[in-house]
């Protein structure tokens, strides 16, 4: 099983959708939330995803296609 630490940043229109639940159901990826801040107009969630490598990849592609920004929790590694 692979693990990936990521941050989801939600646009306002997706705040009410159970995206993390659907990610688990559709892609067999378990999301373990460590930090989050959600309000009525914006939100972010820091979580660890666990599952098969290809399921995580497909799950992240699906989440991204819905308009949620997915970033690695360590920030950008490439520096100047």
């Amino acid at each position: 099983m692979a693990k990936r630490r990521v941050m989801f940043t939600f646009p306002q229109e997706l705040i009410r959708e159970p995206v993390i639940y659907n990610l688990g159901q559709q892609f067999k990826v378990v999301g373990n939330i460590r930090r989050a801040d959600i309000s009525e107009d914006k939100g972010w969630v820091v979580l660890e995803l666990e599952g098969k490598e290809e399921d995580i990849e497909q799950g992240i592609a699906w989440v991204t296609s819905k308009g949620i920004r997915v970033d690695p929790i360590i920030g950008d590694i490439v520096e100047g």
Partner: protein
Amino acid sequence: MSYATALRCRKCGREYPLEPRNLCNFCFSPLEVSYDYKSMAKAVSRQKIAAGPPDMWRYHDMLPVGDEVVNIGAGFTPLIKADRLGRELGLDELYIKNDCLNPTYSFKDRVVSVAITRARELGFDTVACASTGNLAASVAAHAAKADMKAYVFVPADVGAGKLTGIAIYNPVLVTVNGSYDDVNRLCGKLVEKYSWGFINVNLRPYYAEGSKTLGFEVAEQLGWHAPDCVVAPAASGLLFTRIWKGLDELSMLGLIKEVNTHMYVTQAAGSSPIVSAFEAGSLHVNPVKPNTVAKSIAIGNPADGYYALRVARQSGGGAGAVSDDELIEGMKLLAQTEGIFSEAAGGVVIAGLRKLVSSGAIKKNQLTVAFITGAGPRTQEIVSDIVQPLAIQPTLESFEEVVGENV
């Protein structure tokens, strides 16, 4: 000896041994080095520091490594009173901290010197980084000095001129054919798979501490006083937070009085997630896709953005973003008033400072230090339009014909 005691989570306070680790296992927040400040305070004094070497290692007691350091001569760069630029901007007491004058021409030598020293202490024989220029050159140079193997990953679109300044130190230089995000993703996987000291990932807490020396030096060079205002660029936000930490530690150790410095962070508008969050009054830094000529600070997802934001707020400072045109004007102004050819990040600082003075945020009589963190020649193509020589034949007549009126 080192007075470092542990790695501590900046969010939840959990502590970890001084190992290669950058995130808290529980809340995934960044870790930073904790020290035994009581013992450190007994060991340090202004006199001892002043008698130390003319480089960043004069502050060895305040850095998280033991005695055998990897030193190519980084730090203790000039702090210059910038009277001409000050007059131009409307400041009586403006100073430039000129970190172009490091061995590989940027402040990265400070952070890499600490990180590679720690890597060797931890038993790594190989270090790695991903960079568009400055960090790569510095890692390769320090690895050469330490006789360590270095893997350096560079996006394939980085110009040949920059690659020469990396390859000369003979690292394993790998160009990655993909977007900036692709390179980040690849590096995330490399970090997990290989037991390397990844300079700005698993060695990040140690790497970060090197930037404190910028704060130490400025205070020492000002006669053991903290400035009224600091203006510095931000990419990941780490440098900005550590300048502040450096000043704060000096005060805690009794080497300077209480710090009342206002910290101003500047970014290029095409990659300004920290400034945007500041202006929006938000505590969360929303990642962006960078689009600016200031490549050395083009980080869209800044690992320490939140903490940089907090420093700007808590110090009563501020934030400002400038366009690419403005930053290029800033580079020219710095060169043409103070004789310092900075990279684009320096233009961001000068153009940002101009805005901060115009808006009244920084006052005419406030002692202000602008941090110029990297030299221009590595990225000189962004100002190539300034090259407009007067072409003449090798005769006096030709000189007087073409240049005559300008003499």
